[in-house]
Each structure stands twice: as C-alpha cells, then as structure tokens.
C-alpha cells in the first residue's frame, strides 16, 4: 500500500473499505460513514490525547546522543508521570527509518539521561537493549512542563515534515495519555459527531493509553502491543448496555477501543466501568464479546494491528480486502484511508445490497 505522507487527518477524498458480517466488500467515500451505520448503533472512540513522547537527549555516562520514545505507563493518573517504560534509539531522528536506527549505547540501571530540561535515571533494562524502565526527576508539574516544551510527537520516516501536537490530537482529545495517536479518531470531527446524533446513532468515549505501533526491531515488535491502561466511564458502560438491549451494534473506532472493551468485557456483551489494564492479544483466536464492528486504518499484513482484524473477519475475507486495498490505491498508516469491519456472522450468504439507499450510496460500489 501507499504510505499516507501528509499529516492531514480528514482528506476530502479519504476512502473506506467495508467488510460486512457476510464478507461482502464495499468501497465507499469515508465521509459517507454515517450512512453505513444504523439508528441504534453506538460508536465508541478513544479520547486519549497524544503525548509528545519523543525526547531527544544525551546518555550522560557515554555522552552519546539518544532518542527516548516513551512507550508505557502503569496508570492514566495525571500525577503518575515519574515512571515510564521507554524505547531508546541511538543517534538520529525519525527521518531515518526505525529499522535502520543504531542501537543506543549500552544501558544499565543507574544510568543518567539528560533529555532537554528533563533528567531521568534508567532503573533497569527490560530484556532488550532498547527497552528500559526510566524515572524522571522532579514534580509531576515539572515533568509535564519538560515533556510539553521539549517532546515531539513520535513519528516515522514516511511523513517527511515534523509533526506538531495539533497534527496528532484528535478533535475529541481529552486526556494526554497516548504515546501515538489513536488515529481511527482522526475520522471524527464535530460535524460528523453531530450527524451521528441526528441519525440517532449514539456516541461515547473511553480513554486508552494507545502505545507504540512499531519499533523497527523484530524482537521488540513481537512484544507489541504492550500492556495499556484504560478507563471506561459509567456513562459509556451504560450506553453499551443500552445498545445491547435494543439490538444495536457497538462500533469501536480504533483497535485501542477493541482492546479496552474486550479487556473490560463482562457478562452478556457489556463492558464493566472503571480503570483496568489491557494485556490480551487479540487475533483470529479471540472470541469478541463486546465489539460488533471496527472502524480502523488500513493495516499491512504481519503487523499486530492486522492480526487483530482476524477477530472480526475470516482469513479469506481479509485476503480479499488486502487485494482490494492494493488494487484501489488505498493509503496506509495513521493519516491514511480506513476500513469498517463487521464481526463475521459465520454465514456465507452474500447480500447484493447491504445498505439503505440515499444520496451517499451512488458513490459506493460493492465488490462482485
């Protein structure tokens, strides 16, 4: 697939590939998303704001330049910012693809890192030369100040211009806890949220500390996604229960929402309110209990995001979808095009028209 190289969250021409519960594929303009949902459905999005989690600095013991990418936290509490799990790169920045970035100097517990105005101590390495637990000095206010003034959003070589925070905060960004943007939320703006409301499609949010998507290191990538803390409000849990009660669908905007809701799954397809940590990997073996459909970006086969799609659709459907994405010039990565995947019903019946007809449908095309 083509990498989406401009940090534009909602390009007019963005595309949406739909895989419905029967495996039928449909191409649609992404702005027609509300037409593909039904009255009584519930869209749940991640309201995490993205931290400027890339911190350039110096490994004090060796004097070597490093880049620290904050990657993990134990809770979402805003005063719990002293300790992070982090991935450390050697010299260079995002312009060098991560797989070509040099290793940092050897890191050991007690090493000092100077990251702009921030000072941190390596507490220990976490089973990989790039992965460390670190502890910042100072009050939480001073740490927030250091991160805000010195940090840059984590980014990758396929976007050439440096990203600003406004490029990576979704419209609904509320709690600064994500290490990379919960980018399915880029689809949403206030106009679209109003349109959902007008169509009696409910909308709710949760907060999930979306983690790093890729490190360029096969051994580290195999550990992704890390454990991620989340919080589900009582209001959102109630909205899910009501949706279940009326036979609507719970539509997760983003893989992080799937992780949080499935980690919090209780009886009868509802989610428990409260704080938790999502530890499970979701893939073809996972039986989804809460989420009925997923709005997500387009993902390359072989990534943990792509593996998660296996919980929603058969390997055969996903393969057809991968071909369609390739053949129709869909763009990938966080600023790319999107997919809407309905959890498979297990039946093989093919529908000729999964949609109600309206103005938007003239631009939609079902794949034969």
């Amino acid at each position, binding site marked *: 697939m083509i990498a989406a190289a401009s940090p534009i969250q909602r390009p007019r021409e963005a595309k949406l590939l739909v895989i419905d519960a029967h495996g039928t594929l449909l191409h649609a303009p992404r702005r027609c998303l509300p037409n593909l949902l039904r009255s009584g459905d519930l869209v749940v999005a991640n*309201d995490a*704001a993205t*931290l*400027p989690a890339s911190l350039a600095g110096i490994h004090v013991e060796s004097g070597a330049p490093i880049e620290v990418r904050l990657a993990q936290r134990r809770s979402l*509490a*805003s*005063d719990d*910012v002293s300790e992070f799990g982090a991935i450390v790169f050697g010299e260079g920045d995002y312009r060098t693809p991560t797989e070509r970035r040099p290793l940092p100097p050897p890191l050991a517990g007690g090493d000092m890192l100077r990251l702009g105005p921030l000072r941190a101590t390596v507490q220990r390495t976490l089973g990989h030369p790039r992965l460390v637990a670190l502890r910042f000095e100072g009050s*939480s*206010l001073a740490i*927030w*100040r250091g*991160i*805000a*003034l010195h940090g840059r959003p984590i980014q990758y070589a396929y976007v050439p211009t440096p990203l*600003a*925070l*406004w490029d990576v*905060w*979704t*419209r*609904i*960004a*509320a*709690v*600064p806890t994500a290490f990379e943007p919960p980018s399915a939320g880029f689809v949403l703006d*206030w106009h679209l*949220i*109003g349109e959902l*409301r007008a169509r009696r499609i409910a909308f*709710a*949010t949760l907060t999930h500390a979306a983690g790093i998507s890729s490190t360029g290191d096969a051994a580290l990538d195999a550990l992704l996604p890390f454990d991620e803390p989340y919080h589900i*409000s009582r*209001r959102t849990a*109630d909205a899910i229960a*009501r949706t279940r009660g009326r036979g609507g669908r719970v539509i997760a905007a983003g893989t992080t929402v799937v992780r949080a809701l499935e980690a919090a799954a209780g009886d009868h397809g509802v989610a428990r309110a409260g704080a938790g940590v999502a530890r499970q990997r979701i893939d073809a073996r996972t039986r989804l209990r809460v989420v009925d459909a997923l709005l997500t970006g387009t993902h390359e086969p072989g990534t943990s995001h792509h593996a998660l799609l296996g919980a929603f659709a058969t390997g055969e459907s996903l393969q057809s979808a991968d071909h369609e994405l390739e053949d129709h010039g869909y763009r990938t990565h966080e600023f790319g095009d999107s997919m809407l995947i309905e959890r498979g019903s297990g039946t093989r019946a093919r529908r000729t028209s999964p949609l109600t007809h309206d103005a938007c449908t003239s631009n939609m095309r079902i794949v034969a």
Partner: protein
Amino acid sequence: MNASDRNDDRNLAGLRIFITGGTSGLGLALVRGWHAHGARVAFVARTPDRVAQVMRELPGVAGIVGDISRKDDVYPIALQALGALGGIDVLVNSASSLGPVPLALLGDTECEDVERALAANLLGPFRLTKALLGALSASAADGRGGVVLNVSSDAASTPYPGWGAYGASKAALAHMSAIWNLELEGEGVRILSIDPGDMDTPLHALAVPDADPSTLRQPEDAARDVTHAIVAALRRNARDRHHEREALAR
C-alpha cells in the same frame, strides 16, 4: 458574603478550572477565589517570576508559563493544563491585550498593534478552546462541567474612540462565543462571554492612566459575578444531563 456566594463555595469544590492571564487583574482574582473555594486551579501567564510568585502564594495551584497569543505556545499550554488537572471542567479566557499603549485612534494605530490585540483577545481564546474542546466535551458528558467563559468588555458593543483595536477584537470574541455556544449545544459545552465592567486592574491603568480608582470595580467583585455566571451554566448543564439520563432510562 451573601447566600448565593456560600452556595457557589459548595459548587466549586473539586472542579478543575484553567484560567489564562492568571497573574493579574480579573484572572488573578479568579485564581485566588476558586482556590479558596476548594477548586483545582491551573493558570497560565507570560512572566515566569509572576507565575512563581502566585504559586508561592497559593500552594497547590499549578502555574504554567506561556503566551496564549503565540500559536506555538497553545498546545504545550493545553497539554500542561490537562497534565496538571487531569481534565478541564471550566476554562476562563481572561488574558487580554489593549493593542496600542497608549491607546490610539485607529488611523494612528500600527497594523502590528491590531494584530497583537487580535492574537491575544480572539485567536488565543479560539486556539486554546479548540485544543481543549475534547476535554470540555468529556467533562460535559460526565455531568461535571464543560463551560468556557470569555472575558469581554463594554468596548465590544459601544464604540469608544481610541479603543479600536481592543474593542474590535473583543466584539469578535463576543460574537464568536455566541456562535460557538449554539454550535456546541449538542455536546453540552457552554461558551459564555461576559463584560465584567471597568475594573481597577493593571490593564485599565495602561489604558486610562489618570482614572480615579474609586470609580472602578475591584477585580474581586467582578470575579464573584463571573463565578456566579459559571456556576449558573454548570447547574444548567447538570440539569440537562440529568434529564438526558432520565429520558434514556425510559
């Protein structure tokens, strides 16, 4: 203190409020007042020494150094405010710029002075509110808050000669507030604009150096009015959410 003030006290405890221009005039009076009422308070201002001084005076209040009129400062300010408070229920845009000092007739006003007034009085509140709208909307959805109060002026509605840059920018702010308030009805976020009256503040002293302070309001009085307006909007929000929940339960 009258009965409605005491009522406000109870309503402010635990609320998360972020105030711009928090080291001077009305902004400082609001920081002190809300802190005294048990709210969780963060503020931003430009001068590091004055920010530090207010933090020393009011332990527990989070001071942020930044300039809301600078585009590149706004997101770092928003991030620090959210970090300090864990979310935001109330935003008060109080930081203001007069434009030319001393005040000048429009024909004598440098374009750069108009730009400065617009940057501080219109674009700053716009950018900051936009950056924090997700947090304010989440607060409204949770039935906690979701109120933005933009500090306006009678110069926004009455054309006083010499107040062109300031008056035009405050008129734009008041109108933007009214439009945004309508647009956000569905989200439950209220955007208010209030004229606190002529106050005995450093900004007023710059504008009218020979004013008789006894004819001016004390910022603490004005802060009480502003607080009443915010509390009234919070009550309306809470009532609306309550009705919404009841309707959903039926």
